[in-house]
């Protein structure tokens, strides 16, 4: 592994990790505030991408960058207000199921409106092409843009939660809802805004992720499982944990691709020869690069066994 490969892979890993963070931050926020595990979260990501595609074809990309998350915000808030709130009193399982149902509903709607195939959602001229060239490999502006937006988002969410009055109310509503209500704050409205906000963050990730990757109806399902891994590994409800976990998973997955080592190599090191006749050969010959995309799930299982509260989680139960 030479320096060029190392640096480029690190950049790729970090930018992928930051996109994962944008996706999982909204989920984390909603979970930590309301205790709702939102199965439809990646559907909001997909909606963000499709809205941005439609809006940018009318008024251009930059307005879409703001408008698409706003539309998703309104939809998320409306869903909380008119749907989730009604099932809230029946406990966690109906809440989970209603978001599960919503994800299917959104998928079908998207296919009815935009069709089942890929839509040509591209970036504006300013964001196309390479930002800089490193040892002969270009680093695209689109990826740098993902990194920039993710970092700005992290900063603003953090400032909002810790430095503003709204943030104080949100944090208080999380721990002492009755007390906050007694002080005259409208806690259900805070929840509505938080849910809408979380959805909007996913929508923003969609606006950027939709053209860095591909905008198609399966895009929600394809990131659905990985963001749950991020949230669990980082620690349920911990924003900093989600940040750490996304970067970790992004980088691990990127570097694993380069490692063409299998268990056969490991056995060879200790002097055991493995041939095609050896028991379990198909499993032994799998290289790390081949299993790279499923490594996060292995990670998930290990975390659940050895540190159930996640890397930076605070919940003890």
């Amino acid at each position, binding site marked *: *592994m*030479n320096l*060029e*490969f190392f640096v*480029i*892979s690190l950049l*790729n*890993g970090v930018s*992928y990790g930051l996109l994962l963070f944008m996706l999982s931050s909204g989920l984390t926020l909603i979970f930590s505030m309301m205790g709702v595990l939102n199965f439809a979260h990646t559907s909001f990501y997909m909606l963000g991408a499709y809205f941005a595609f439609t809006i940018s074809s009318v008024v251009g990309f930059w307005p879409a960058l703001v408008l698409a998350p706003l539309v998703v915000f309104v939809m998320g808030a409306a869903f909380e207000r008119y749907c989730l709130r009604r099932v809230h009193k029946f406990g966690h399982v109906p809440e989970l199921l209603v978001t599960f149902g919503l994800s299917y509903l959104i998928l079908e709607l998207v*296919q009815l409106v935009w069709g*089942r*195939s*890929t839509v*040509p959602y591209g970036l504006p001229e300013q964001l196309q092409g*390479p930002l800089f*060239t490193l040892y*002969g*490999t*270009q*680093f*695209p502006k*689109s*990826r740098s843009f993902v990194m920039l937006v993710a970092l700005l988002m992290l900063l603003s969410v953090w400032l909002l939660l810790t430095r503003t009055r709204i943030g104080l109310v949100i944090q208080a509503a999380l721990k002492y809802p009755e007390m906050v209500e007694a002080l005259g704050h409208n806690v259900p409205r805070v929840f509505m805004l938080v849910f809408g906000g979380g959805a909007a963050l996913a929508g923003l990730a969609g606006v950027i992720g939709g053209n860095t*990757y*591909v905008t*198609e*109806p*399966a895009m929600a*399902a*394809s*990131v659905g499982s990985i963001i749950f891994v991020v949230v669990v590994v980082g620690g349920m409800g911990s924003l900093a944990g989600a940040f750490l976990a996304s970067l970790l998973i992004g980088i691990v*997955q*990127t*570097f694993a*691709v*380069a490692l063409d080592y299998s268990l056969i190599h490991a056995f060879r090191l200790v002097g055991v020869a493995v041939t095609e006749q050896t028991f379990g050969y198909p499993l032994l010959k799998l290289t790390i*690069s*081949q299993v*790279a*995309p*499923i490594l996060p799930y292995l990670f998930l299982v290990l975390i659940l066994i050895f540190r159930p509260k996640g890397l930076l989680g605070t919940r003890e139960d």
Partner: protein
Amino acid sequence: MKFAIKAVAASVLLVSAGGVFAQKGETVKIAWLDPLSGLMAAVGTNQLKSFQFLAEEFNKKNPAGVKFEIIGIDNKLSPQETTSALRSAMDQGARYVVQGNGSGPALAIMDALEKHNARNPGKEVLFLNYAAVDPDLTNSKCSYWHFRLDADTSMKMEALTTYMKDLPEVKKVYLINQNYSHGQQVSKYAKEMMARKRPDVQFVGDDLHPLAQVRDFSPYIAKIKQSGADTVITGNWGSDLALLIKAANDAGLNNVNFYTYYGSVTGSPTAMGSAAAGRVYMVAYAHMNLPGPLNQIVLDYKKKFNDDMYTGSIYHAYTMLSEGFVKAKSTDPVKVAAVLEGMKFKSFNGEVEMRKTDHQLQQGLFISKWEKVNDKYPIDSENTGYTFVPVKYYEPYVASTPTSCQMKRP
């Protein structure tokens, strides 16, 4: 006496004429079993529309005078679902079944039909495979009731390596494929055939990645770059090819040529766009700008659906069936299967032959290159302004590969 001879002659003529048109006006139900949901839904939807669209075309003019009717059922790309979909199709009276996405579901149909046809004489069902390309389907696992209209992995690799062997710039080849039967076959045949034709070519990488799971191919691109490869061979399709090419474009990997199987399938043309011009090749039995009977169909399809008609083997299916009906003087699958064996017919890529020994269509193959549209090749893919322009045509014998099929005939 003279009158008697005339009468006999006339009645013989009448009978034989009646025999020729025994099937005229009949409705032939064809069951289409492919994905309409999940990751491959876009491809399946396009192909179902193509089947329906071509049914209308062939209903207007086919030599057998039959009416084709398509029953489309979602098999969710799963062999289990395919088996139950097949049962439902047979209950609806379909005696012909078509499928193409994935060799797993194809094998499930072949297994089910072997049993069904043996147990239900008089109700036999025939399987036309229009895109599942695992060579095993016409070799070790071949079946009398299965006919393949696409060229299989080994045939396409034969054509591709024949083209590449004359290119001095091909020195270091990188293989990247999906980790399941098709991808593994591409990797295997690429190494075998290249070693035979150009032993000096080095394979600097051989990656197998999970099917339809990788969202970000830039790590693989970084790896390809590090390996110093000048050529990539990939059998990837759908999002796996689109994202691979996109990542290569983003990283500015512009000194590496890509040799693909499925460059024109939904999603990939958009991902390639202008950035991949001149660097992506495809091997296939057709291309978008083929003159002749397919041309008007491609144009009409585009006008009607604003989408590409890229599965030319569907045209093979209708041509072969209607000519088979005429020859067999019947639409009964048993009689039709008997005449399809070894049948030669004229299709859009010249005369093709359904080889008797293994039921693999022998056909010419094109190598084409992703280029800007021009006067000669005006039809673009996915409204990108770019299209696959043919650079080489290989006659059927070039791409023909031997078979090990020991067919059991009923």
